[in-house]
Each structure stands twice: as C-alpha cells, then as structure tokens.
C-alpha cells in the first residue's frame, strides 16, 4: 500500500470508521511508514486536545423561554389555518349566493348588474394582486417565521 492510497483513511482509522479488513491494511502500513505514522500520531494528538473543550451551553431557563415562543408560534399557525378555512367557505357561499340571487335577478336593471359585476371583479383582481405580492415578498424574507 502506498501513502497516496492512505490519505483521508487515516482520519477514518482514528474514528473507527473503516471496515475491519481495510483497518488492518492501513494499520500495517502505518507501522512501517514513518510519514503516515507521524500524521496518524498528529491526528491522535489533535483529538486528545479537542476532548478538553466543548461547545457552549445555555441555562435551562433560556430554553424554557425559547420553547414558549416556539409554542406560541405553532399554536398561532393552527389559528391561521382555521381562520383561512372559515373565510374560504364563507367567500364561496357569498359568490354562489351573489351569482344565483343577484346577477340572475331580472328585476334589477342590467346596467346596475354590469356595474356591480365589473366593480366586484376589480376588487377581486386587486386582492389577488396584493396577496400575490405579499407571498412573493415573504418568500425572500429570511426572518419571516421568526418571533422576536
């Protein structure tokens, strides 16, 4: 086995991540190769000193407070879904009722029906356009889900 073939496998050897057969081959090479044995020893030393430190931890109180913010956020999202569903049902019924009872009512002059119809269409277009703009803006806002 050549040193080039060993390379990153020295790290895997240190971490016990090699299959048994390969581990044996690499160990055999490390025993006879000065360059690789020095590199392996350096890796072991690095692991030794890294064991003396750890990532910082925060007190439990921080996580309790943090969780309550996440919880509120989750709870609110259920509220938004229910509100939207209710709104969609009501809107659907309103459209059905308007078309059925109002636009088809021959007793109302056609000019009024056309005027109200165009006005309603305009309002729908404005709402759709505004909602679409908001959605597009939200997509690029990295902190949209953040509750501060």
């Amino acid at each position, binding site marked *: 086995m050549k040193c080039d073939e060993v390379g990153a496998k020295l790290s895997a050897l240190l971490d016990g991540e090699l299959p048994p057969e390969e581990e044996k081959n690499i160990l055999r090479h490390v025993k006879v190769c000065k360059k690789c044995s020095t590199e392996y020893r350096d890796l072991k030393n*690095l692991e030794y000193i*890294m*064991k003396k430190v750890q990532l910082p931890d925060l007190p439990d109180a921080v996580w309790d407070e943090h969780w309550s913010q996440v919880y509120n956020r*989750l709870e609110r999202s259920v509220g938004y879904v229910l509100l939207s569903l209710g709104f969609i049902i009501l809107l659907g019924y309103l459209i059905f009722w308007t078309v059925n009872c109002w636009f088809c009512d021959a007793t109302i002059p056609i000019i009024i029906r056309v005027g109200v119809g165009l006005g309603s269409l305009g309002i729908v277009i404005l709402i759709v356009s505004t909602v679409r703009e908001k959605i597009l803006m939200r997509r690029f806002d990295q902190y949209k889900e953040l509750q501060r």
Partner: protein
Amino acid sequence: MSSNHQSIVADVEAAREESDLIRRSARGDKEAFGVLYKLFAPRVYGVVYGIVMHHETALDITQLTFVRVWKALPRFKQGSPFFPWIYAIARNRALSEIAKRKNKPSVLELDERIAGEDETHDKHVELKEDIGRALAKLTPEHREVIILRHFQFLSYQEIAESLGCPVGTVMSRLHNARKAMKALLKGWEDDA
C-alpha cells in the same frame, strides 16, 4: 448485570422513548414536541453557533428550525437518526447567514471540559482560546464537520445524511479540516 449491558439497555430505552416522542409529535402532540425540543434544541444551537459564531443569530436560527421541524415531522422517516435530519434543516440557513456576514468573529467561544492532571487552569483556558481561534479561522464547511464529529460525536454516515453528501466526501473533508486545525494548533500538538 455489567455496566456495559446497563448502558446498552439505557441507550435502547432512550431510543424507544425518542421514537415515541417523534411519533406523537408528528400526530400533532405539542407536549411531546416540547420534550423533543428540550432534548435537541441545545444540540442544534451548539452546532449552529459553531458555524455562525454569534449567539443571538444561533438562537434565532434554532427557533426557525424547530418551527420548520414541526411542519415537516409527518414526512420524517421513522427509525432514521433524528438529529442529522433536524440539522439538515438548520444548516442551509446557518451557512447562508455566515456567508452574508462581513465582520466574522475572530474566535469561537468554547467551554472547558476536562483538564489534564498535569495542566494548570491558565493553560487550559489558553488552550480553549487557541482552539476557538483556530476553529474561527477554518472555512464554515470545515468548522461544521469538525463540530459534528468532535463535539456532537456523529458517525460518518450521520454526518453524510446531515450534509447531504457521500460518506467519502465526509471522510476527506474531515481529514482536510483536521490537517488545517493541526497546522493552526502547532504548538499545542507538541505538548499533547
């Protein structure tokens, strides 16, 4: 009963409890999700802090990650490791955050774990600061892989799942990261 056997039994129990919490959370049980949160949020925070090197930003990203985890939980494949899955959700935001940042911190804050018998407190503090400075000098990708291996003790397979890359890539990236650390901590390695 040997202590080894007891530790295996405890690990199995913990895994069973964890998978029960995941299942309940996926069904909408917020109480179970709260327990999961308290188990995993500090770990997610730790790794994200290791990448962005800023406490407030790391907390913000942790919060966003768990809101996403809640929404994505029904799609989680039961039985697969949970932490790599959560971390995969957190990492894109963490990496894009550090890429945006103009003034990168020059040191990563760390805590002391264990001191060698022959080591003074001052020397241990100095070592901690030097490791923090060395980690801060690495690329975010190298720092990430060092943190996942050395501080979160993930296997190569778990790291690969977290990063969405092959195990071979993890192996070479970790090796290169260690070589960079080794060069940055030259004096300390000789002392080890």
